[in-house]
C-alpha cells in the first residue's frame, strides 16, 4: 500500500549523511559487541536493521543517542560528534527521538503529561503550546481521546503509539526504533506499523530495528543485516530479500520467511 515511490518530491532522500558511524567498536568488558561498524544514514532515509538475537543491532542504535557508550571510532549525528561532552550528548539527544521495545512510558503521569514533560523541561515550551502539540500528535497516531488516561490504562499498541508521539513531540530530526513491535500482541502490531509507515512517508529519518520483514520490505530504503556484531550485508529491500549474497543472510532469511 505504501511504497517508496509514493514519497513526494520534497521527501526524497537527501544527499547529506545525517548519521555517520565510522570504524566504531564497542566492548562489554572483554566481549566485543560491535565490530568495525561503518554506517551512513542520509537525511529522510529509512534504514531497517535486521539480524538474529544478540547480533548487536539494539546496541548499535542505542550508541547513536549515547544510551550505550562506544569505545572506538566516531559517531557523528547531524554534524555533532558524539563525545563525552555533556553538551554534545544533550544536543544529539534533542535531535533524536527513540521508541523502545518496552514503550517505557512514565507510569506515574498521564498520557498528555508524558508527551508534554520533555517539551516543557527540555524545549522550554509553555504549557499551552506543549499541550497543543501533544494533542495534535495524539490525533496523528490515532488516539486523540486517551490524553487524560494513565499509561497503565492503555493497550500495548496504544502505549507504543503514545511513546512515538512522545518522541515526536520533541520534533527530532531522527527517530530510532528499537524493536517497537516485539512486545505487542499480533493484533496490535499493525496499528503501530501503520503509524511508522505514515512517519516514513512524511520524510522522517528513521533507523528501525525490527523483525517485521513485511515492514522492512515495504518501507525501508535500505536494509542492514547484522550478525555477531558486524554488518554482514547492506542493500535495498528488493535486492536484499530477493537476492541475498552472503550465506549467513540466506540462512537467516530462510529461517524467518
Amino acid at each position, binding site marked *: 500500500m505504501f511504497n517508496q515511490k509514493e514519497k513526494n518530491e520534497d521527501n526524497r532522500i537527501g544527499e547529506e549523511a545525517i548519521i555517520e558511524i565510522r570504524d566504531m567498536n564497542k566492548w562489554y568488558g572483554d566481549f566485543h559487541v560491535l565490530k568495525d561498524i561503518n554506517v551512513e544514514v542520509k537525511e529522510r532515509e529509512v534504514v531497517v536493521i535486521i539480524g538474529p538475537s544478540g547480533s548487536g543491532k539494539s546496541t548499535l542504535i542505542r550508541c547513536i*543517542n*549515547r*544510551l550505550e557508550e562506544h569505545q572506538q571510532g566516531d559517531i557523528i549525528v547531524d554534524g555533532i560528534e558524539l563525545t563525552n561532552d555533556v553538551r554534545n550528548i*544533550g544536543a544529539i*539527544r*534533542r535531535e*533524536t*527521538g*527513540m521508541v*523502545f521495545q*518496552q*514503550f*517505557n*512510558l*512514565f*507510569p*506515574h*503521569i498521564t498520557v498528555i503529561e508524558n508527551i508534554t*514533560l*520533555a517539551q*516543557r*523541561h*527540555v524545549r*522550554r*515550551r*509553555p*504549557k499551552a503550546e506543549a499541550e497543543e502539540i501533544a494533542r495534535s500528535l495524539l490525533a496523528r497516531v490515532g488516539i486523540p481521546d486517551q490524553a487524560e*488516561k*494513565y*499509561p*497503565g*490504562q492503555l493497550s500495548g499498541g496504544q*502505549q507504543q503509539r503514545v*511513546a512515538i508521539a*512522545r*518522541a515526536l513531540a*520533541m520534533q527530532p530530526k531522527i527517530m530510532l526504533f528499537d524493536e517497537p513491535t516485539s512486545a505487542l500482541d499480533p493484533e496490535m502490531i499493525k496499528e503501530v506499523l501503520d503509524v511508522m509507515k505514515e512517519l516514513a512517508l512524511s520524510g522522517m529519518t528513521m533507523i528501525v530495528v525490527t523483525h517485521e520483514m513485511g515492514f522492512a520490505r515495504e518501507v525501508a530504503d535500505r536494509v542492514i543485516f547484522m550478525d555477531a556484531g558486524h554488518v554482514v550485508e547492506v542493500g535495498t529491500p528488493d535486492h536484499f530479500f530477493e537476492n541475498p549474497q552472503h550465506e549467513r543472510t540466506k540462512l537467516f532469511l530462510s529461517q524467518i520467511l
Partner: protein
Amino acid sequence: MSDNEQNRPDNYYVSQTEPAAKPPPALETGAIKWIYENLASSILNVILTLIGIAIIWLSITGLSTWIVRDANWFSITANFRNFMLGRYEAAYEWRATWTLFISVFIMGAAVAVWIKQIARTMLISIIIIILSLQLLPPIINATNDLPSWYAGAGNVELAVNQTTEVPFDEIAFIGQAEDEIQIQFASDDIADEEALANLNGFVDNVANQLRNLAGNRLEDIAQLEQWEALVAEHEEALAEGGVPVLTEAQYLEFTDEIADAEIAPPPIDFYNLNQNPVLVEILDAGTLDVVASATLTTPDDVLSLTLPEDGWYILRKTFAVSDVDATTEDETSSDAAESEGFASNEGIALLDVHGIYPSAKRESNIETAFTRRPDGFIIEGPDVTEPVVDGEALPFIDIIRNQYRGDKILQHYLRMYVSPFFTQIGNYTTLLLLTGIAGYWLAELLWAQAGKQTASRFASYGLMSIPVILWVLINGMYLFSVMMWLIFIAMAIASYVLYKLTQRDGLTPLVTIAGGIVVLLGVGVVVNVSGFDLPRLLTVLPLLTDDAAVPRFMIWLGIIFVPLAIYLGNDDHIPGEEVKFNLPLWAGLSLVLFVGAAFALVTNQVTIDTEWALQPSDARDWGGMLLTVMLTVYGIIIAFPLGLALALGRRSDLPLIKYLCTAYIELVRGSPFITVLFFAQLFIPLLSSELSQVPNSYRAIAAVIAFSAAYLAENVRGGLQSLPPGQEEAAKALGLSSWQTIRLITMPQALRAVIPALVGQFISLYKDTTLVSIVGLIDLVGFVGAMVVQAEFIGTRLEGLLFISILFFIPSYVMSYISRLLEASGSGSTRRM
C-alpha cells in the same frame, strides 16, 4: 472418527440462548459462608477457632477486671498534663493548644481533598465521640454514687502489729459549694468481720487498719481450721489404722502451730465499734464557726448539710461521752489491749462519710493546688494552704493516706475515673473535633467555589506548614518579632524581584547568589542604620562586626538558601510565561526562618523584651507527648531530604560521594538507636563549647534525624532500584538532564513504590522515640517512670503504660491507615506497564 461424528448429528451442539445469571446457593454467600470458610472449614480450623476464642475471652475478662477493679486511674487523670506536655511552661500552654487546633484544622481540609471516602466514617465517629464525651459524664454522675470515705473516730489507739493509729479528732478538707455531705455510722459495713474486711471506698488509716484486722483475723481463723481439720483427719486415720494423711514432721509442725496459734480478738467487739455516740461537727476553716453538727448515737442518726461555699472546712469528730477519769483510762486501756476489750465508754467509731473526699496537694514555686481526686475539684492559688489552727497546720484528708481500698465496683470506677476524665478532656476534644470538621468544610467550600486545585493547594501548603508552625509556636522564636517580620517580608520581596529578573534576563545562578547577598546586606544595613533599637542578633550586623558566630551562620544560611530556592524554582521557567506561585522559593524561605531560628535558639543567648516576640521555651522542659511529637515530626521532616540525598549519593557515579554515603548509611544502620542517642548526647558537646549548651532534647532530635535518614535512604534506594532501567533511559533519550530525571521521573515513582516501607519506618520511628527516656528525657515512657516514684502513684506503672500504649496506637494506626489509602488511591501509578 470424523465419519462417526458426521453420523451422529445430535452430538453437535450450538448454544442458542445465553443462560440467565442465577443467585449462588444460600450456603455459599453471606455470614454463614464466612463463618464456615474462616472459622470451621476443617478440624484444625475449629480447634484454632476455639483456642482463639478462649484466648480472647481470657485476656478480655482479665484485662477488664483489672481495669475496673484494681487499677488506680488517678495516675492518668491527675497527670494528664504531664503526659501531654511534660514540664512545658504553663504560660506557653496556649501555644501547644493553638498548634494542635491549627493542625487538626488542616488535617480536616486534607481529608476533604484527598481521602473523602473516609469522611462519612469519620463524621460518624466524631459525632459518637462528641456525644459520649458530652453526655456520658452527666449520665454517669446521675446514676452512680461516688464511694464513701470511711473515717475512724474515737478515744483509743488502734494497735496493729508494732504500730498504733489514733483517730484524728479534727481533720481539714476542701469542699465545693452545693456539695451535699452526709455522715453516719458505717453500720452495714461492720455487720460482721467479713463485711468489715471487704470494706471498699476511701479509708483513713484507722478504717484501713480495722479492715486489715478483720481480714487478718479471718485468714488466721481459716488457716487454723485447715490445720485442725488435717490433724483431726490424720489422727482419725491413725486410729482406724488407715493411711496417715500427714508425715510425722508435718503432724508435729501443725500441732505446734495449733498450740501456738493466737487469734486476735474480734475488732468489732474489741474496739466497741460504733457503740458510743459521736459528736460530728463541720467547721468553717476560716472562722472556725460550726456550720453543722450532730450527735450520732444510732445507725439512723445522720449529719447532713449542703456546703455554702468553696473552700476549706474542718471535720471534727469526738466521742460524746462523759470524760473518763484519767487514771482509770490508762489502766483500762493497757489491760484491755491484752485482754477482752475496752471499757464501754471507750473505743472506735467507724463513720461512713459521703461528700467529703481526699485530695492531693501539689506545690510549685508559683502556687499550691489542692485537687480533690474523685471529681477533680480544685482549690489553687499562690496563698492556698491547709488551715492553720493554733499556729499549727491541720492535717487534711490527703489521698496518699486515704487511698481507695478494696475491690472497686463498676459504679465507683465509672464515677471516679471515667466521668471526671471525660469531663476533663470533653470540651477541649469536642472543640478540637469541631475544628477538624470546620477545616473539612472550608476545603469543601474552596473546592466548590474555586476548584479542586485551589482546595488541594490549600491542604498541601497547610500540611507543609505544620512543621513550621509547630516549631515556631512550641519552640518559640525570638525572631518572631515585628522586626523579624519586616526583614522576612523584605527578603521575600527581594527574592521575588530577583526571581523575576533572572527569568527575564536569564541570569546565571551565580549572579543570583551575588544579588541575594547584596540584597540581604542592604536590608541589614538599612535596618541597622534606620536607628531601630534592634536586638543585636536580628540584624545583619554580625556579618560586619564578627560577633556571635551562630547568628552569622544563620544569615549565611539564608543567603545560600534564598538564591538556591530561586534557582531551583527557576528550573522550570519558560521565558515569557507568567510567573506562578513558586513552591521551592517559598519552601526555601521558610527553611531560612526555620533553620535560622533553630540555630539561633541553640545558643539561647537572647530574650527580647518585646511583647510581640514569642519567647523561646526551654527545650529541656519538653516532655510527654509533646516531646514525642517533636522528635517524630522533625525526625521525619528533616531526615527526609537527607535520606533522599543519601540514597542518590549511594547511587552516584562519583566514588567519593558514593563511598561516603555508603559508609554513613552502613555505620548508622549497623548501630543500635540507643548508641546513636548516647553518641549525640555525649559527643556533640565535645565538638565545640557552643554546642555544649544545646539542650538535650535538640541533641535527641539530631540523633533521631541521623538515625532515620540512614534507614530512609535505604528505603528510597530500594524504590529507585525497583524501577525498570527503561524509565531512566527513556528520560535520557528525551534529553532530560540527570537532575530532571531524578526529580520528574525516578524519584516520584520510587517514593510511590516505597510508601508502605516509609510509613512503616515513620511508625517505628514514632515508637522508637521512647528510647530517649534512657538518656534522661521525660518522654511518655520516661514520665511513666517518673510517675511511679511519686508517693501517690506508686505501683501504677501498668496504668501508665496502658495509657501511653493507647497514645501510641492511635496515631500509628492512623498513619498506616492513611498509607493504605494512599497506596490504593490515584495516579494509576501502582500499575506497571
